[in-house]
């Protein structure tokens, strides 16, 4: 019996078709995403080594050079107290990353627990958790962050909680929907029919199909938390002034904008480019993790 194989859908012979290799190949074709990744990598490196390359301590005020424009001594200039802006930015990067990553982890952990619970238990638990999600989405999460930061006070850890705790709803909803689509899906039933154990199904069938959306949602979560953190600082609910943060610098710069523009230019542009870089990376990841994204 002759069976004609459709010739209209040629399949190119490609040997290495592992998930991450495929995704990386798609990712690196997106130049914006790659550029974003480079910037994000630099941002992370600065976050880690910042304190060692900083020319001054962030508490060192150079009283002889207040409001100094950029110069060899203070390459990004100084503010009204004489704080070196370059040092301030280096430390801001560190705290921004600590808070954004910490807050994203907090949101994600709460989201994963509640999302799994809602998806697996169903019934009343599901109903209550999903109404909670609706409630969180009904009001801006910045509003919740503001209330929490008032309750928890200032500082690094309270800020992580204030930004992280209200962010759970999106992750919970995503994970619940992934659980439901997996649990009722034919793919999992087929794997069970093959005789696969629960761990095999989770590792080989479920995880590869959910890891993409989770990584993407985390990648979008980090810049959102960076923004929230800067927002809290701008309204005065962020880190206390000796601790530098982008929000504090921007708030301070906006009141000094006429005479001393370098106070705004450097932190604002670095912060803006960083946000864009994170978003480009997240966008690139989204495309890269789609198995149907063209090759």
């Amino acid at each position, binding site marked *: 019996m002759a*069976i004609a*194989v459709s010739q209209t859908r040629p*399949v190119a012979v490609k*040997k290495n078709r592992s*998930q991450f290799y495929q995704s990386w190949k798609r990712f690196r074709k997106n130049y914006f995403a790659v550029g974003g990744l480079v910037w994000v990598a630099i941002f992370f490196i600065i976050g880690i080594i910042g304190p060692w390359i900083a020319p001054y301590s962030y508490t060192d005020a150079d009283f002889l050079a207040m409001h100094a424009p950029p110069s060899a001594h203070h390459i990004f200039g100084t503010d009204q107290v004489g704080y070196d802006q370059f040092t301030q930015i280096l430390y801001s990067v560190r705290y921004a990353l600590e808070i954004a990553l910490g807050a994203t982890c907090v949101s994600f952990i709460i989201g994963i627990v509640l999302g799994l619970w809602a998806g697996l238990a169903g019934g009343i638990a599901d109903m209550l958790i999903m109404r909670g999600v609706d409630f969180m989405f009904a009001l801006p999460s910045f509003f919740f962050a503001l209330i929490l930061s008032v309750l928890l006070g200032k500082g690094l850890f309270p800020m992580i909680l204030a930004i992280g705790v209200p962010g759970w709803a999106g992750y919970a909803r995503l994970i619940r929907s992934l659980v439901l689509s997996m649990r009722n899906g034919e793919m999992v039933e087929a794997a069970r*029919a*093959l*005789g*696969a154990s629960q761990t095999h199904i989770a590792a080989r069938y479920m995880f590869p199909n959910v890891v993409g959306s989770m990584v993407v949602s985390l990648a979008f979560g980090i810049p959102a938390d960076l923004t929230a953190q800067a927002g809290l600082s701008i309204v005065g609910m962020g880190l206390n002034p000796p601790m530098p943060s982008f929000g504090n610098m921007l708030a301070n710069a906006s009141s000094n904008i006429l005479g001393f523009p370098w106070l705004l230019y450097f932190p604002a542009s670095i912060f803006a480019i960083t946000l864009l870089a994170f978003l480009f990376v997240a966008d690139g990841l989204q495309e890269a993790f789609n*198995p149907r994204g063209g090759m």
Partner: protein
Amino acid sequence: MPTNPLVKVENVSKRFRVRGRELHAVSNVSFEIEAGKTFGLVGESGSGKSTLGRLVLRLLDANEGRITFNGKDITNLPNRQLRPLRQEMQIIFQDPQASMSPRMTIGRAIEDAMEIHKIGTKQSRRKRVDELLERVGLPSFVKYAFPHELSGGQLQRIGIARALSLNPKLIVCDEPVSALDVSIQVQVIHLLQELQRDLNLTYIFIAHNLAVVEYLSDEIAVLYLGEVVEQAPAEKLFKNPSHPYTQVLLQSILKIPEDPSSRQKMTHIQGEIPSPFNPPSGCTFHPRCPFATDVCRTQKPVAKHVDDDHKATCHLIG
């Protein structure tokens, strides 16, 4: 002659709880299938035929009754002991794309089935993938493809190859061709027949298309609202349908005779299949049955023999 059936289903019932209500998906069904035969399950959507197929494979657990596979009672077998048995009983799905991971290449998907049961070495599994693809009529390079890069017919062949990789005795074919183009349907059905002949497979063939079932099956059970209303060898069922439901079902097959004078009006069953939450009293078919009497409305019929191997569950017989 005492037979030793491969599959034995005895008084199996399955109920689902949906929002506090009971849904009777399968009620008190019994049948036996001999090795190497094809058992057809027909019925409208919602008749419980897919549920029944999954009960046989223990993808769902029955509420009542007993399922014996190859002489072994598997009704309450714990998962740990059931998993090795799954090698011998496989399933082909209606939507082959949905049954595969979109992130696994075809080769990986077939290899994975063998890996689960620790069949062979990595090299021998790779070799087997090529053999299986050839067996189902596909070139070996499709193993590098992802499911979304293939057509429905190709994917169904791969679903078959994946099931075959475990050398099963029984394959439940859950509407394997109903999502395919008609020309492809014939190819896939021929493939299934060929494989049955060569590998002595036993099929449970689930379909709503009677013509397909007639063509393939040795024995057919007609399901209505989770109950077997008629069961007989294929020729007998088609020659002498005894249950009114089977009769209307057969009349609804689209056949156009050559001679216009012998064309007859097509009949169809009135109404819809009733709610399985609340099955009708007496004979569940009575609200749609053209011959229903008072007995049908009040008393539940029992299976009666039309012939020694032909049973129908209807008050009007005998």
